[in-house]
């Protein structure tokens, strides 16, 4: 399941990178490419967050329990 989460994150970064290419290109074509890439990236990000919520409810994935605070 962790691999799935990382894979989605990698795809999100791919679309973020694709948006940079659009930004660099400029003009109507570049602007369209950038907007579409950013739209896909936000859809995937929201999906990933909701997936984590659902997956943790069903016990498919659990927090790593590394997020500890010292008790004094």
């Amino acid at each position, binding site marked *: 399941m*962790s691999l799935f*989460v*990382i894979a989605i*994150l990698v795809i*999100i*970064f791919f679309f*973020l990178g694709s*948006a*940079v290419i659009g*930004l*660099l*290109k*400029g003009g*109507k074509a570049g*602007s369209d490419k*950038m*907007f579409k890439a*950013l*739209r896909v*990236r*936000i859809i995937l*990000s*929201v999906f*990933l*967050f909701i997936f*984590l*919520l659902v997956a*943790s409810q069903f016990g498919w*994935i659990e*927090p*790593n*329990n*590394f*997020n*500890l*605070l*010292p*008790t*004094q």
Partner: protein
Amino acid sequence: MSNEKYYVPHGTYWPIIGSIGISTLFIGFANQMHDVSWGWPVMVLGFAITAFMMFGWLGTVVTESVSGMYNSQVDRSFRWGMSWFIFSEVMFFAAFFGALLYARVLSVPWLGGEYNNIYTPQLWEGFKASWPLLTTPGDVGQNGVAFSTNFKLVNTWGLPALNTGLLLTSGVTLTYAHHALRAGHRDALMAWMLATIALGVVFLGFQITEYGHAYHDGLKLTSGIYGSTFYLLTGFHGFHVTIGVIMLTVILYRIQKGHFNLENHFAFEGVAWYWHFVDVVWLGLFIFVYWI
């Protein structure tokens, strides 16, 4: 676009003011770190000069842009400049994520004797190679410092998840703003921009609250490699969100002034990308600090 000749910038005093501001800022910061009495005021003065320079220089650029002084060659220069800035930002955060994963996956287990390395209890009595490592081994035994052994778990679905939801929602509202700009719906554009800025401000408020709780519970910048990497990552991210909120506010002001149209809105695109990037960095933090 007034002409297509090679653009030669006019003489300007802003670079030297920027150099003076940044030098003053760092001289003040360095001396403040050494508890020198004049460190703080000099640091604040340096910050003020730098802010003045940015306001003045960027204001000049905006004035030149809206008066039609820039041609397509200048447009390409801005796009390349933004792309290199983006590259440096990606590398900046990659270094901190790399430090977190290197410490967690490799160096702390090595200190515990894995992979045929030295077994460190011989060096530091009572050392336990566990993650999170909240005590720097060399400090143990000095000034009453002991290895942290008692922990309590942070609720992943508390503030961390709430902040993730807030930033992702701001990514959605910004996407709607972007769509409104491309469709020429000015009122909708301003409303979605306002929503994005408000969500960013609320995020920062919750982040400050979380820091307050963590510090109160004893997780400090000096709390071993975990405390250092946690605060460096989340702190620099919070700094970027602050910069993002300021830039979004400037863009909102420029929208209100009518600086952008359907074809020419590079400044909006640059800031929009930056905000999406900051959003993804937080998602990465949420996943690597709390889940994987």
